C-alpha cells in the first residue's frame, strides 16, 4: 500500500523527473541544432522549482530568470507549447518570439523567464502589489540566482516589499556560480543577514531535498497569505551543466564537478522512495509516463511551423478593440 507521504513524494519525483528529462532532451536538441539561441539548464536544481511551486496556486504569480525551464514547467505551462517556444515555432507559448529566456504563461501566473539578471525581482514586487490591492490572498514569488544578489533592484525590492508588507516570497536559488565565477567572488553578504536587516523572516533550506523545500515553502506561504508580509527563502543547490549549453566548465574544479551527482535531487528522492519500500513498478511507471510526455512534446515541437514575420509589426502594441 502506498502511504500519503509516499504518494506526495512520488508526485515530486515525477515532476522533478519531468523537468530533468525535458531539459536533457532540450540539451540534445540544442546539440543537434534544433534549438536556436542559447539555453540555460536547471539540471540538478529541480527540487527548488518543484518544491516551491507545490505550495502555490494557479492564481499565485511567479517571476523567473534566465534559468527558468523548471519554474515554467512546475508552474504548469503546457509542455507542448513550451517545447514549441524553445524550438522557435509559431505555435510556441510566445509565438517563437521569446524562446528559452522568455517563456511565460499568464494563464498559470508565470510572468516570464527573464534575460536580465535580477529583473524578475521588482516585477514580482509589482505583482505582489496587485495582489495586495486586489486583496485576494494571492502571493507573488521571485526566483533568482546567487548572482542576482549583487543587483541593486534586490535591495530596493527587499525594502519596498518589507515597507509595504507585500505578499511576496523571495527565493534565492544559490547554486554557487554566477556564469563562470564562484559566488565568493561576487557577493559578500549572506542572504539571511540581508533579510534580517530588512526585517523579513528568512529560511535556508537544502535545495536538493524536495520534501524539505516543499515543507518550508508551505509554512512560509501560509504565513504570507494571512497578511504576514514578505519572506525570504534561500535554497542551496548545485548547477550540474555549464552556465549555458556548450559551456565546457573548465573553470570548475574537477572534484567539485564530480561531486555534484552526490546531491542530485532526483537520485536523493528515489533513495527515500526506496527506503519507503516504494514498489519498483510505481517508479518504472513514472519513468515511462515522463518519457512519453517528453517524447510527445518533442514531437509536437518538431511538428510546429516556423513563425511567419508578416503580422509581427502589427503586434508590438495591443490591437484596438474590435480590430
Amino acid at each position, binding site marked *: 500500500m502506498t502511504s500519503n507521504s509516499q504518494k506526495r513524494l512520488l508526485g515530486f519525483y515525477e515532476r522533478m523527473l519531468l523537468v530533468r528529462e525535458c531539459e536533457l532532451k532540450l540539451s540534445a536538441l540544442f546539440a543537434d541544432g534544433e534549438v536556436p539561441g542559447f539555453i540555460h539548464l536547471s539540471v540538478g536544481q529541480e527540487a527548488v522549482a518543484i518544491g516551491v511551486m507545490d505550495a502555490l496556486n494557479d492564481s499565485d504569480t511567479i*517571476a523567473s530568470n534566465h534559468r527558468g525551464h523548471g519554474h515554467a514547467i512546475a508552474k504548469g505551462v503546457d509542455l507542448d507549447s513550451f517545447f514549441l517556444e524553445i524550438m522557435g515555432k509559431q505555435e510556441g507559448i510566445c509565438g517563437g518570439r521569446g524562446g528559452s529566456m*522568455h517563456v*511565460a504563461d499568464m494563464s498559470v501566473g508565470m510572468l516570464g523567464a527573464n534575460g536580465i539578471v535580477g529583473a524578475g525581482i*521588482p516585477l514580482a514586487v509589482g*505583482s505582489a*502589489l496587485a495582489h495586495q490591492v486586489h486583496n485576494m490572498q494571492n502571493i507573488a514569488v521571485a526566483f533568482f540566482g546567487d548572482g542576482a544578489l549583487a543587483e541593486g533592484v534586490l535591495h530596493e525590492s527587499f*525594502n*519596498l516589499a518589507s515597507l509595504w508588507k507585500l505578499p511576496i516570497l523571495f527565493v534565492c536559488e544559490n547554486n554557487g556560480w554566477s556564469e563562470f565565477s564562484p559566488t565568493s567572488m561576487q557577493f559578500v553578504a549572506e542572504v539571511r543577514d540581508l533579510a534580517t536587516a530588512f526585517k523579513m523572516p528568512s529560511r535556508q533550506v537544502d535545495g536538493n531535498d524536495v520534501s524539505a523545500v516543499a515543507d518550508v515553502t508551505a509554512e512560509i506561504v501560509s504565513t504570507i497569505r494571512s497578511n504576514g508580509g514578505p519572506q525570504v527563502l534561500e535554497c542551496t543547490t548545485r548547477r550540474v551543466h555549464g552556465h549555458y549549453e556548450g559551456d565546457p566548465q573548465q573553470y570548475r574544479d574537477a572534484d567539485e564537478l564530480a561531486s555534484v551527482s552526490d546531491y542530485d535531487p532526483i537520485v536523493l528522492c528515489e533513495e527515500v522512495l526506496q527506503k519507503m519500500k516504494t514498489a519498483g513498478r510505481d517508479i518504472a511507471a513514472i519513468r515511462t509516463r515522463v518519457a512519453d510526455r517528453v517524447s510527445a512534446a518533442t514531437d509536437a515541437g518538431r511538428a510546429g511551423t516556423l513563425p511567419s514575420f508578416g503580422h509581427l509589426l502589427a503586434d*508590438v*502594441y495591443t490591437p484596438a478593440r474590435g480590430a
Partner: protein
Amino acid sequence: MGEVRFGQAINLALDESLENDPSVVVFGEDIARPGGPFGVTRGLQAKYGELRVRDTPISEATLVSAAVGAAMSGLKPVVEIMFMDFITLAMDGLVNQAAKARFMFGGQCSVPMVLRTPHGGGLNAGPQHSQCLEAWCAHIPGLKVVVPSNPADAYGLLKAAIADPDPVIFVENKALYAAKGPMEDAPGPLEIGQAHIARPGTDVTVVTYGATVKTALRSAGSLSESGIELEVIDLRSIQPWDEATVLASLSRTHRLIILHEAVTAFGTGAEIAARMADVGFDELDAPIVRVGAPFMPVPFAASLESQYLPDADDLIAAVHKVLA
C-alpha cells in the same frame, strides 16, 4: 469649466481615473501625502486611500519595474518619476520589460501602465534636472510617448494614456505646470497619435510639441504681421507621431521646420526630418531645418540657460532660412 492650470488638469485626469477604475493606482516619491513636488497629485491620497495612492522610497528602478509587474497582474499603475533625468535609473524596466512583454510573450498580456515625468528647463535646475530625453523612449518599440502642450490636452491625453493597454510615457514640461488654458466642461480623452493643427498657415510648417508649441504660436503671431503665415502642428504624441498630418501640411507649405526643447542632435526632430526627407521629398522646396537645444548639457546659470533654450528668435531665424 473655464480656465484651468496644466497641473490641475493632470490632477483632474488622475482623480477621475482613480474614481472610475478601481484598478488604477498612483505612486511615486512624495506624491501622496505631500501631494507631489509640483503639487500635481494633491488630494488624491486623501480621496482614494493609502492602498491606491502611495508615497515611495527613492528607488526609481524598482518603482518602474514594479509598475510593469503590477500591470501584468491586473492593475493600471501610474508611476511618477520626479524628473525625467531620473529615468536613467529605470530604463531596464521601461525598455527591457514594459516595452517588450507583450511582444515577446506572443501577445499573452498587455502592460497598461503610465509613467508620468517632467522634463525641460527654465527653472535653472541645472544639468541633471532639466533634460528632455523623450527621443530615447520613442526609439523603443512597444513604448508610446505623449507630450501635451496645454491644460486641456494634458487632461485628454492623460485620460487616454491611463486607458491605453500599452505602456505610455507621459512627459510634462515643468515650465507649463502653472500655465492656464481653457477646458470644456466634460472633456473626453484625446486619441494618442493624432496631431493638432494649433494654427493653420500657408508658408512654413512648424512641427513641435510640449512647451515649444507656445513659442511657435507666439512667433507665428509676430511673423503674420510681416505676411509670413506659419502652420503650427502640435504633435501631442511623438510615438506614434502623426505622419499623415505633417505630410499633408508639408504638401501645402513645402517648407518644414521642427522645433523642440530637447537637444537637436539625435532628437525627435531628426526622425521627423528624416521621414519627410523620404516620403515628403517631392514636396520640399527648402532645406528642412531643426530648432532645438545645442549639443551641451543644460547649463545652470540663468544667463546661460536662457541662451541655451530654443526660443522665438531661433525659430524666426529658421523661418527666414527656409524662406530664403
